[in-house]
């Protein structure tokens, strides 16, 4: 049975990573050529890892379900990427970023991993800049920084509101360079449907060719998952609609433990739901809260136009509740406060599920031009979608599912509990605890890809230099392929009457209502029952049109939704187990008299790590205790 050993190197925090690198085992260049790496996912972490492993001389096979690696959802990250350069001379350091992340994550992340994420952040910015990523610059030619996510230093590098796109394209260009060199082979329009484990080690994957439907076997000495998060479990989220967790779920079912599945960040500002066919909620960057003021009417169900509601009848509830931080409270606090007002009947718009984000005062004070310079592209985007001009009246926003801090459990080397299976980027649980700070997602993805996995994988592969090429004729491949064939046949065989999307929507609603921003025992127990019932209905009445041997987008969706039933339950089970409120996880039973989240360190200072025991069995919980050696555990207070 897999052991839970986080393999944290001994010694002072700031020396752990350099000590690890100096003492890890290496693979000599001649042997690297003989080692095959399977890498699934081509977002920022996947593309960065692929190019770096290719540079080192390994044989890398990269898989993505899109038509090209450049479309992975890292492309949509807006705000920026953090690094501790301290170019602004404002007192930043690795330790300070580490501390901000630990505190922001509400003391539910592993110190050593978080420190390393901060430590490699500078090299990441240097690498991206050298690759030609056009970050914003000052007139003197140096890189510009902005303050982001409510921290006290300016450490965020950015490329307008398209930082994710520029970072991903930088990594993609590095990946392309290795494709030209022949170290990386790219397999696009492929979806990983099964993991192959031989003698306890991850040795390959089964993919479906999304053009021909053919199932393909790919073998390697190791498998890396860079498959992103599972925010689409809510159906409506800020994620790309095809983002999914099927690869991670396959790994979980094969023995990789899942860490903190219930930690899901709800972003406070996205454009609210406008119609019943809505497929996606568009994010409005957090930076807007630097100048926009959030309010709802003081009167319940006030249907007047926002501009007709006089100043005295507006409730600037964030400024009222959190005078010190006001509109700049962290994401989880802002999201819950919006929900509280809307649930109490003060929400605006047709659905009552929205709050105003008003720039009137900022425009009056700074002028329209200044606001346009800062947020022009976001205002345009808002107007394109809603038809409303936010210079003339407030934007309407509402929280939506955004980022999953939870993911596959990994040790310090980013290896899961299956030897030889690694998870990087958002697909692992590693660096953000119970809540992620702004601009640290791109940072972690790029850092994992360029500087962490490229080192730690050598420690594993050094033990594989005598392992010959893995054959895809092994019985384990045979069985894995047969299992996938069986699942696909089963999906077609139902031949019911309801669309896959209709099930996904209903699952999303269950998750949003009972396991979203605010959770309680009764609701979570209801959710478990509803998920079971919906799953049963799915397998009796879902309709998957067409055949397997062609492009079949409904079949792709059906497989992903089928896996989501299992993950949804795991999320709820995790949320039920964690009786405290921390970070993005808010249990109504655990709050202060004024309605703030109440953490319970005595009972819950651990990572909840879940082991799969079968579809009909409860997963088994293990606890990775979180011992804070280097920071003092404090309460998060934004009042």
């Amino acid at each position, binding site marked *: 049975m897999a052991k839970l050993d986080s393999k944290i190197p001994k010694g002072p925090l700031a020396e752990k990573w350099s000590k690890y690198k100096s003492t890890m085992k290496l693979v000599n260049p001649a042997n690297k050529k003989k080692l095959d790496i399977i890498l699934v996912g081509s977002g920022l972490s996947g593309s*960065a890892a692929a*190019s*770096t492993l290719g540079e080192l001389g390994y044989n890398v096979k990269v898989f993505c379900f*899109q*038509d*090209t*690696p*450049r*479309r992975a*959802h890292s*492309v*949509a990250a807006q705000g920026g990427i953090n690094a501790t*350069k301290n170019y602004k001379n404002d007192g930043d350091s690795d330790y300070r970023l580490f501390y901000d992340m630990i505190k922001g994550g509400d003391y539910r992340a592993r110190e050593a991993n978080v420190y390393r994420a901060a430590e490699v952040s500078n*090299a990441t*910015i*240097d*690498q991206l*800049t*050298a690759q*030609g990523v*056009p*970050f*914003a*610059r*000052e007139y003197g*030619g140096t*890189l510009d920084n902005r303050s982001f996510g409510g921290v006290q230093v300016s450490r965020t590098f950015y*490329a*307008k509101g*398209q930082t994710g*796109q*520029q970072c991903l*394209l930088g990594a993609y*260009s*590095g990946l*392309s360079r290795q494709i030209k060199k022949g170290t990386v082979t790219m397999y*696009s329009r492929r979806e990983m449907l099964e993991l192959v484990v031989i003698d306890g080690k991850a040795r390959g994957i089964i993919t479906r060719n999304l*053009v021909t439907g053919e199932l393909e076997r790919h073998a390697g000495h190791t498998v890396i998952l860079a498959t992103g998060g599972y925010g689409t479990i809510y159906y409506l989220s800020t994620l*790309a*609609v*095809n983002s999914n967790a099927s690869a991670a779920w396959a790994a979980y079912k094969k023995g990789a433990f899942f860490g903190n599945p219930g930690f899901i960040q709800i972003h406070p500002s996205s454009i609210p739901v*406008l*119609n019943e*066919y809505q*497929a*996606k909620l568009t*994010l409005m960057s957090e930076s807007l809260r630097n100048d926009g003021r959030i309010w709802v009417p003081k009167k319940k169900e006030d249907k007047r136009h926002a501009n007709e509601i006089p100043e005295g009848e507006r409730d600037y509830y964030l400024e009222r509740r959190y005078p010190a931080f006001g509109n700049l409270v962290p994401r989880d606090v802002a999201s819950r406060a919006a929900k509280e007002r809307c649930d109490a009947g003060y929400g605006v718009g047709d659905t009552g599920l929205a709050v105003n984000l008003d720039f009137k005062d900022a425009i009056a004070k700074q002028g329209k031009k200044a606001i346009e310079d800062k947020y022009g592209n976001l205002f345009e*985007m808002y107007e394109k*979608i809603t*038809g409303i001009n936010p210079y003339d009246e407030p934007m309407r926003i509402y929280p939506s599912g955004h980022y999953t801090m939870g993911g596959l459990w990994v040790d310090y080397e980013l290896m899961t509990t299956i030897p030889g299976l690694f998870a990087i980027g958002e697909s692992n649980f590693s660096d953000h605890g119970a809540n992620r700070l702004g601009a640290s997602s791109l940072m972690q993805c790029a850092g994992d890809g*360029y500087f962490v996995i*490229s080192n730690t994988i050598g420690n594993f592969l050094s033990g594989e230099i005598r392992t010959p090429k893995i054959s895809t004729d092994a019985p384990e491949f045979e069985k894995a392929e047969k299992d996938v064939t069986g699942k696909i046949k089963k999906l077609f065989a139902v031949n019911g009457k309801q669309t896959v*999307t*209709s099930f996904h929507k209903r699952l999303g609603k269950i998750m949003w209502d009972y396991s979203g921003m605010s959770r309680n025992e009764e609701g979570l127990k209801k959710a478990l029952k509803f998920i079971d019932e919906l799953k049963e209905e799915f397998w009796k009445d879902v*309709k998957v*049109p*067409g055949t397997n041997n*062609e*492009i079949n*987008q409904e079949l792709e969706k059906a497989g992903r939704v089928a896996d989501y039933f299992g993950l949804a339950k795991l999320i709820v089970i995790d949320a039920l187990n964690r009786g405290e409120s921390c970070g993005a996880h808010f249990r109504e039973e655990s709050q202060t008299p004024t309605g703030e989240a109440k953490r319970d360190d005595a009972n819950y200072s651990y990572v909840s790590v879940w082991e799969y025991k079968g579809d009909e069995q409860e997963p088994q919980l293990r606890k990775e205790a979180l011992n804070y050696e280097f920071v003092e555990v404090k309460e998060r207070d934004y009042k």
Partner: protein
Amino acid sequence: MNIKLKIWRQKNAKAKGKFVNYNLDNVSPEMSFLEMLDALNNKLIIEGDEPVAFEHDCREGICGCCSLYINGTPHGPGEKSTTCELHMRSFKDGHTIVIEPWRSRAFPVMKDLIVDRNAFDKIIAAGGFISIDAGSSQDSNAVLVNKEKADEAFISASCIGCGACVAACKNASAMLFVSAKVSQFALLPQGRVEAVERVQSMVAKMDELGFGNCTNTYACEAVCPKGISVTNIARMNREFLAAKIS
């Protein structure tokens, strides 16, 4: 609203395609264009028909998946917007909308409205990068970059690789796409080191893959959802000429 649709249906790359007419009721002006297609597909599946295949992912105008020709224009009537950013309020009750895939020999149709844009990846792999290994880069501020140049490079770099430029061009030229990448690197000091080889190998690959030449119609610029300007093409031509005589 009621919308009449005329959509290109094609079983696979080898099959012969044809237009099929559909009628869709209860279209709300709030719907995005793709949500309208979702509604159509929902109806088709329930009625036992095959849904229309189209490519989409981020649905916020940045991934570049969208590849629909709407009423004869790539990405439809919106200005500087992708198909997914288009909303039904741009159309009127009773309108007929014609939807086709990108029309270009370089982008063969794979099914219905999905085309193969793999040629773009091949052009990037031919030289659309700076050869720098992870770990060997110097401090980011060691080389100062003029802000205006950096901003210009950013605008060129904001290309989403959707291929509307190729689809709009009567010559199926990929010059706007290629020149945007060439320009991004040509404008930055980091990119100058390999500038000569880069422009030659990317242009050679573009020609090899069967993209046409530029005859200055500027249809590409007109349909580009990111507003990439044809001055990039002029810059690439200059770079190419300089490379040839260097």
